[in-house]
């Protein structure tokens, strides 16, 4: 458990979610272990007594999340509703409270996976591993970021911006780091069965490093001889060593039952196109722009955009399609393959971007990065900045 505490303490910092060594992380097996003690540990320790959980993360988020959360909690009442589909599926809603007392915290965490306490931080927990607490923490940060920028654009368009919102936006805009340049080369394909693991690893790492995914969401695959080499469900794109599943395209082995929930989408792309490499991430501005639609108010599918959007939508040359994770009736495996043909990539409404190419990951990564850069530019254009 000590090793896991250290791991997620480091990861929170590395992903830009908290300041270095800011998080308070506790785990409980037979005894409680904290990474450090202060007056808050006394309060949080009581949560372990009342809740059937085994780990807690409590931390003030890093900027710009801190400022965003301060703003959102000031302007919404009790609960923040995330806009993006992924967070909605897994977290449903983001409750907050101004009362930093055990009873209030307990009551909210009895029902939800996270709690925001403005001015103090975010509390998340796990029932089997601190990894759950980390993922939830990261998802909360992602969700508030998407929500803030989406709302801002919406308010700007309808001229309902408040001074406070404008001020917050200007402050945050200065905090956003530019995306890196792709000035190097990834491994050159086509890959052999031996080399493919290294290539997937390398491309996964660079995707995370370039901040094109949040926490571990995102996936990657490569096709050799009708076998899909794909990242496992819930694996971190920057830690793929040992977490690649092999799935024969004819389903002749189920050993890849632990493969990414997007296996069906990857498979369908391989079946319908001549690509051999696929990369999927959740770049923030691609997600934000995918939800910016002028038809929304008069559309009969309002509020069902993520499943039923009837329009052919684009950001410049990149199609935006509806679709849900997995194999359901609105599965994105039905919408992406036809849309991605002849394109640099596809953005899934409120979710993320897929890129596919032949040979190796150079083009796939370059496209994911350039789509996100384009979306960011387009965002500021639409917001008239």
């Amino acid at each position, binding site marked *: 458990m000590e090793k896991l505490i250290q791991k997620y303490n480091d990861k929170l910092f590395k992903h830009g979610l908290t300041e270095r060594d800011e998080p308070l992380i506790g785990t409980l097996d037979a005894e409680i272990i904290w990474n450090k003690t202060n007056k808050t540990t006394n309060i949080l320790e009581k949560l372990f007594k009342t809740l059937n959980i085994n780990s807690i993360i409590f931390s003030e988020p890093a900027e710009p999340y801190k400022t965003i959360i301060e703003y959102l909690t000031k302007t919404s009442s009790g609960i923040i509703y995330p806009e993006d589909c992924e967070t909605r*599926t897994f977290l449903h809603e983001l409750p907050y409270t101004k009362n930093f007392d055990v009873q209030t915290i307990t009551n909210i965490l009895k029902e939800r996976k996270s709690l925001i306490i403005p001015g103090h931080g975010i509390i998340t927990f796990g029932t089997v591993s601190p990894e759950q607490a980390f993922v939830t923490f990261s998802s909360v940060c992602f969700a508030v970021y998407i929500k803030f920028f989406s709302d801002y654009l919406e308010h700007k368009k309808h001229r309902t911006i408040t001074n406070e919102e404008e001020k917050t936006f200007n402050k945050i805009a200065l905090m956003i780091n530019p995306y890196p340049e792709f000035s190097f080369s990834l491994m050159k394909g086509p890959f052999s069965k031996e080399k493919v693991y290294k290539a997937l690893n390398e491309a996964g790492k660079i995707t995370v490093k370039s901040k094109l995914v949040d926490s571990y969401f995102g996936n990657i695959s490569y096709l050799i001889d009708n076998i899909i080499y794909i990242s496992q469900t819930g694996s971190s794109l920057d830690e793929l060593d040992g977490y690649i599943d092999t799935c024969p395209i004819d389903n002749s082995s189920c*050993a890849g039952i632990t493969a990414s929930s997007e296996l069906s989408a990857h498979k369908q792309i391989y079946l319908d196109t001549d690509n051999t490499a696929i990369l999927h991430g959740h770049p923030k501005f691609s997600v934000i722009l995918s939800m910016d639609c002028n038809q929304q108010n008069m559309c009969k599918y309002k509020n069902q955009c993520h499943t039923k959007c009837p329009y052919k939508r684009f950001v410049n040359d990149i199609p935006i399609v509806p679709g849900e994770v*997995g194999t359901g009736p609105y599965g994105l495996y039905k919408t992406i393959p036809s849309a991605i043909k002849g394109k640099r990539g596809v953005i899934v409404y409120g979710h993320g971007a897929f890129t596919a190419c032949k040979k190796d990951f150079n083009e796939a990564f370059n496209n994911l990065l350039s789509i996100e850069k384009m979306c960011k530019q387009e965002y500021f254009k639409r917001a008239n900045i």
Partner: protein
Amino acid sequence: MFGWCGKILKIDLNSKKYDILNPDINILKKYIGGKGLAGYYLKDHITLNWHDPDMPLIFFTGPLVNTISPTSGRMTIMSKSPLTGTIGDSSVGGSFGFSLKKAGFDGIIITGKSFDPCGIEINNKNITFTNASSLSDLTVNEINNLIRDKGSTAAVGPAAENGVLFSNIVIDNHYFAGRNGLGLLFSSKGLKYITVKGTEKTKIYNKESLKKARQDIFRLTFASPVLMGELGISNFGTAALYDLIDNRRMMPTDNFRKTHFNNACLMNAHIYKKKFNPKKQGCLGCHILCKYITEDGSSIPEFETMSHFSALINNNNISVVMEANKICNEMGMDTISAGATIACYIEILNKKLSGSDIISILKKIGYAKGIGNELRKGAFRFAESKGKSESAITVKKLELPAYDPRGALGMALAYATSTRGGCHLRSYPISHEILRKPVSTDRFAFSGKARIIKIQEDLNAIIDSLTACKFIFFAATLEEFSKVYTSITGIETSAQDLLKIGERIYYNERIMNSLNGFTKKDDDLPSRFFKYPGTSGNNIDIPPINRTEFIKTLENYYKIRGLDINGIPTKEKSKELELEWKN
């Protein structure tokens, strides 16, 4: 009343009379249903012999059953296990639970003993007792053909009549209340079958919020690779696990002397699907549908069955697996115990058996003939009678299923602490140790596992009480199911409140076992796992389990569960959980 019917059918087979109990709402809130309520009604009788006519045989549904709640078509059957002497409960699918609620009952409690073989037929409020003498010796399938017009069915086959300690109660011909020999107890009461049908609706407190909660759960299940994925159990049945478990080097082979089966890739789910072309079915009220049935009405074996009738007994013939599964189902006996008992027999005999030998032995077990009369008592009793106890791979006399504990140390602890003996379903650590849900944990570490196992036992206890299917929790959580519960019953609750009730239900089982003398010495694994390694390979090392660490983790578990150092429930913890403490 919302959710529950508020009525329990109490049947006395001595007099062939019945009564209706109206449980207090506080009892319902405290134990919910399924195994929670069944355990509550079992507790006062648990020290009786299993074959005592006063020992109750209990069927319970839960408040979610007969509603649109996802995977709600399940129920629990519970009593004392003839095989293990522990509490014996089994969560079972099919449509019996739905039909029972439709007839207006949350559960049935049966005591007494009928002089002649009898059947019970429930049609709404009409309860009829029939003479079932003519059904003796018939297979489950044959019985079912005669009674299925009368509604959903529960029946026992020849195995139960012939004293097989691991005989099942079979629901709707294809769903098995297995593992603990409850079929034998059913038969000991002179019962041959029960049928049930009805027309009542379960009252829902808030239909709109129920619909929303259901939608939230659906979205999660569709996003789950294990459930609805390309290679998941909806597409292949639980057989989908076969490749994975072998690939992770934890497929019990040659009676747990190896953990890798060379022939696995030729006997996997894909090959069954290709060869037998089965159609998808499932429990009532489920959208996952993990049951596969062929045109001639045979079930494709579940993962455990597939594994034990191939790797464990070293059989390379897929048709023998199908046939063995069919015989067990028609005889009404547990496939895991049957496979493991034969594996134990092979080890002691020290000779390979042919496919036809295996089929012939299974029939002999079902009819208690020849060697079958010895093997019908299960691996533990058989090995002990031959002076070879070490060849019985059991915990509390229950044969272990198809996950070698050397390949998942949480599973090692969970086998030991399970209240019904060597069972994988109490905590199902395979979920995080192998299937990566809700996130993955290190399968070769004991660190942190004591608390995880305890929490997951509480979780599964509440799932079996609501009732829902454990599989759906690969995707959904109590966060969503607490909304379902509140929408149906109108009772405000939360994920953590439900988990606390799960803790009470599980502790109650621990109390019952302690009353029958179970202590720390019973919470242990066969010595083989501590002495010998599994089959390493594929860059995976499978060493023996470190006994010192195992014991330390078990002791941590006791501390976390609120048991004393001997694994006995305490007065203080019982009080905290509002349970009556007995000693």
